[in-house]
């Protein structure tokens, strides 16, 4: 996978494929970042996927300002720095409980035991989904990814929508005080939010709130167990956990790319990309661009790797970035309190979920005796 990105990067700054209705690909760090910064030229309203089947309706990634700005504002309420700081004791407690149980069991698949349960527990706290709801999210999301390339937004998300609609009904009938309650009475600039919009906000939080964290946390535990020098380096200086987190995010880019559409003719590296073209922005390739990150395949905690494009950049940048960074840091700090992790077999991989999301499917680990 990563060598394929290297070949792509080396074959040109602007690539064109005639597959899937024709699209361009940007693979170099500077070009991808410039496109993300220029959200008036590289627009989102024609969809974030290639190909886009049906009408793009994912909130907020399939929208442009001004409505995008309003959607984002209400979603960010779930993820303010103050809320995340206040959640830190909950995160510590949840991670301590998961890792203690994992250790007591002698290890096993880190995804099933730790990296999936963690973001699901966080979704109950931060959004207000019930434990029953989150217990269904992984299966329903995997089923959604399996259909998303052939069906439109609503068709692929029909089962997720049913669960989310159930949450909306539950929050209307019970006296609850959480993000969903606040969301349902939110007013956009000029009108109250509709139930359809609230449901699509919740579907995004349900999917993006666990898929990417699960993959990043799994990559983190795998890389740590696979590289004893790296693990020693961390255990000698656990306060440097944030730098480890950034390198994992850069090297194992969980959301590998998103698409935009050009609103006008634009020239990149002397190549004319005509107005109306679909353009794939390869975060995964950009994050290993040697011009931005020398010796890009090397895990190097001394580099300024916070500059990576794993969360995108600009007006569509991942609103869960701070939460993800805090969760992964606490996970590393917690693991340092236990015996060293050792690989107990090779991790297994599946093709990227929905063509976008990539991480180990299962990571068999055990603890050193």
């Amino acid at each position: 996978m990563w060598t394929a990105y290297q070949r792509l990067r080396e074959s040109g700054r602007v690539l064109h494929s005639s597959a899937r209705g024709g699209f361009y690909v940007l693979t170099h760090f500077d070009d991808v970042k410039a496109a993300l910064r220029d959200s008036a030229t590289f627009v989102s309203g024609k969809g974030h996927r290639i190909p886009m089947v049906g009408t793009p309706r994912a909130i907020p990634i399939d929208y442009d300002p001004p409505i995008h700005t309003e959607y984002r504002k209400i979603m960010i309420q779930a993820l303010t720095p103050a809320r995340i700081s206040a959640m830190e004791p909950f995160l510590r407690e949840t991670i301590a409980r998961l890792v203690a149980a994992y250790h007591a069991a002698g290890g096993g698949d880190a995804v099933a035991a730790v990296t999936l349960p963690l973001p699901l527990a966080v979704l109950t706290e931060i959004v207000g989904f019930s434990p029953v709801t989150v217990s269904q999210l992984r299966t329903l999301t995997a089923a959604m990814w399996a259909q998303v390339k052939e069906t439109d937004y609503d068709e692929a998300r029909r089962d997720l929508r049913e669960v989310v609609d159930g949450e909306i009904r539950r929050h209307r009938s019970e006296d609850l005080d959480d993000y969903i309650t606040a969301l349902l009475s939110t007013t956009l600039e000029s009108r109250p939010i509709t139930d359809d919009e609230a449901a699509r906000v919740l579907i995004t939080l349900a999917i993006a709130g666990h898929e990417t964290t699960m993959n990043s946390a799994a990559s983190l535990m795998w890389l740590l167990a696979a590289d004893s020098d790296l693990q020693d380096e961390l255990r000698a200086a656990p306060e440097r956990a944030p730098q480890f987190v950034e390198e994992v995010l850069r090297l194992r880019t969980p959301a590998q790319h998103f698409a935009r559409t050009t609103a006008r003719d634009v020239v990149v590296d002397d190549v004319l990309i005509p107005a109306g073209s679909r353009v794939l922005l390869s975060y995964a390739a950009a994050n290993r661009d040697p011009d931005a990150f020398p010796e890009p395949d090397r895990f190097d905690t001394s580099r300024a790797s916070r500059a990576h494009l794993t969360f995108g950049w600009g007006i569509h940048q991942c609103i869960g970035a701070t939460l993800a960074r805090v969760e992964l840091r606490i996970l590393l700090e917690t693991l340092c309190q236990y015996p060293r992790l050792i690989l107990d077999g090779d991790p297994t991989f599946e093709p990227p979920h929905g063509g976008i999301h990539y991480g180990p499917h299962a990571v068999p680990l055990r603890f050193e005796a």
Partner: protein
Amino acid sequence: MTNRNDDTKVWVELDETLCNGFGNCVVAAAEVFDLDPATNVAVITQNPVPDDLGDAVTDAEADCPMRAIRLRRQ
């Protein structure tokens, strides 16, 4: 050459109530911005900005997804 007054300094203003802790300002100008690990909110570490960091803080202003950074020249 411009006739710009050499005493003109760039000052950074940060609206902490808008900041969402993305840290793009730290990427653009690590000499001027940092993130407070306790609050996840950006902090300004030197103000006014040293003359050679004018471009860096201009990037920081443009790169903030929350529009929480404003530059003032005086």
